[in-house]
């Protein structure tokens, strides 16, 4: 496990900081930049598009012990104040012949693209990496942008689930500025898309998981409906997940007394009032902020748990916790620290997450 934090002067410089950190972790963590156009842009969409494709090697990081791939590329519309990264996951890397002839979009089995809106000015960032995944949070103005690429902690062996790659940004669209406050501008704590479809070909989502059938499936808890977040119950992230309640009776669940986490601790309207706020538990030396692992839940073909997002948790800010606060789990020895951040632009108590700080 490795961590770095610092300040980047632009969304492009953040790419090089990101690259230098990851590729500098060898031999502890094996990460190679198999494509890096930072000094020789090849992007077609913009003269200053920079592409980087990374090859991770999880051979020493437990199941699945294999190489994994993801790419980032810059985008910008300076006239609209839009700068950021696009992110895709892959199952391999093909540089082509001549070198560089296989595009960012045409790498092996590419995921749909997700986006991390950023700035063309100074930003503070935090990056955590292990053999199996990379998590990054970037402070942009008063918002916090989230990024994930890598394997889930699945409830399956490598044979059963060989390539559980998950990519996540902060937005499903590259049209949002870092300062936008759209409801569907929401990351892995409560992932969103602007469509209702679960079918990959037409779906939008800020999070995608490659499943055993080779399909990249969208993971999203909600979409925008007017000014509210309209829950979607197909493939979700718990605890703010919505189950397909029509499945419940035959599954033996309690359809008559639904008080799922989302219904209790969440409001579909920014600034709204949930049924209940989760407050801190009395503790020493500090009161305790309970953490709940972000967990992927599938409703098709049956309601089941797929895996956890390694080291990332949902938490409540009730009790005074706020972004960049360090909270401690003193139930373990040595104490484990976590850093708290809000979900992009949201300030509601139920819109916070924490990253295991190691």
């Amino acid at each position, binding site marked *: 496990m490795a961590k770095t934090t610092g300040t980047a002067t632009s969304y492009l410089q953040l790419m090089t900081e990101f690259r230098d950190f990851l590729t500098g972790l060898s031999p502890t963590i094996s990460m190679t930049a198999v494509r890096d156009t930072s000094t020789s842009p090849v992007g077609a969409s913009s003269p200053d598009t920079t592409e980087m494709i990374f090859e991770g090697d999880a051979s020493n990081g437990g199941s699945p012990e294999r190489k994994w791939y993801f790419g980032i590329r810059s985008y910008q519309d300076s006239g609209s104040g839009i700068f950021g990264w696009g992110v895709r996951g892959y199952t391999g890397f093909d540089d082509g012949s001549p070198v560089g002839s296989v595009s960012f979009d045409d790498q092996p089995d590419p995921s749909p693209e997700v986006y991390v809106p950023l700035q063309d000015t100074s930003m503070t960032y935090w990056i955590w990496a292990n053999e199996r995944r990379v998590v990054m949070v970037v402070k942009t103005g008063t918002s916090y942008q989230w990024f994930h690429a890598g394997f889930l902690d699945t409830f399956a062996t490598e044979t*059963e689930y060989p390539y559980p790659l998950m990519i996540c940004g902060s937005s499903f669209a590259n049209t949002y500025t870092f300062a936008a406050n759209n409801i569907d501008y929401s990351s892995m704590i409560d992932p969103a898309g602007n469509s209702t479809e679960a079918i990959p070909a037409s779906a939008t989502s800020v999070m995608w998981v490659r499943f055993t059938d080779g399909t990249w499936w969208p993971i999203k808890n909600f979409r925008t409906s007017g000014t509210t977040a309209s829950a979607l119950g197909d493939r979700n992230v718990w605890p703010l997940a919505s189950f397909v309640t029509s499945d419940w009776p035959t*599954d*033996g669940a309690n359809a008559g*007394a*639904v008080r799922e986490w989302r219904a209790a601790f969440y409001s579909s309207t920014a600034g709204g009032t949930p049924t*209940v706020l989760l407050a*801190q538990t*009395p503790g020493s030396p500090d009161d305790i902020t309970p953490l709940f692992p972000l967990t992927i839940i599938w409703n098709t073909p049956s309601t*089941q748990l797929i895996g956890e997002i390694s080291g990332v948790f949902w938490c409540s800010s009730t009790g005074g916790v706020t972004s960049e606060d360090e909270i401690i789990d003193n139930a373990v020895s040595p104490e484990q620290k976590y850093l708290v951040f809000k979900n992009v632009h949201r300030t509601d108590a139920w819109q916070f997450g924490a990253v295991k700080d190691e």
Partner: protein
Amino acid sequence: MDKLNTFLTGTAGWTADLFNLTTRRAVWSKAGVSCKVMFYWDTNNIGNAMIQTYVGDVALTSQGGAEYTSNTITSNRYTNMMTGPYPSYHFFEDDNYIHVVVERSSGIYRHFGFGQMNKLGDWVGGCYVYSGYWDQNASYIDNPHSIQHHMGLHGANSNNSTFGPGWHAEGFPDTVAPSKYFRNTISTAANDDDGEDINNGFVFGYMDGPNVQFMALQESSLNGFKPLMPIPFYQWYFGSAPDRARLMGYVPDMRTVNMHGLTVGQEVVVGADTWVVFPVVRPGNEGLSFNQEQSYNYGYAYKKVTT
């Protein structure tokens, strides 16, 4: 009860402050468990409650700091339909808890127990106690969603919540001091025998609460992995707007489980641990009304600890 006492005071290491088959009373305690637990029974029902101090072979309300104000079993938390004989029973214990599963008649189960929760934080208390009441009214008996039932660590909201699981906590935020006890959501104000508040809480088992969605979880389509979900204790304070909840801890070695694909008494191995699953009362099909106890696929899993 005799077998339970023998088990508890044997390798389980509990102390029987009282065990009298004639007066039908027992009080058990153990270092590390924040309360003493009293059992009192008749030929059909078994009541249990927390007390603070043992006074003697006297009724519940004559003990020190009793959880209830009545000595009537059926007015308090109790396990019903326990006339017997029982085809089977199972005691699960480790460290500071005892969880009991009784097959009260062929294929029909009851769950009761007590112990010390795995607390979050450093507040005073942590003892919990629960029983297994299943309403026999024809309108409810084959409907496990009925809030009339209070089986194990269930989470049912309101209605006879005096029957629900209880736990010990003192000096907790959003409580009026002095008070000693929490109970699964009580719809009306209640007091213990000292006149102190019984505080509102939720133990999120199979019936209600934010964790009830886990009861929809089936086995993994990849490998048959069956999630066994921890059962948390929460404070649920209604005196603020919105309500305010606090996670207090988890019951040790007891989980909820969707028994779809599992058989009664089946052992489920998760890593180094073996769990044994039982229905809440009896497996039954959704929507089937036959005026007998049934609980769909709701189940509890108990960790099998052998030494």
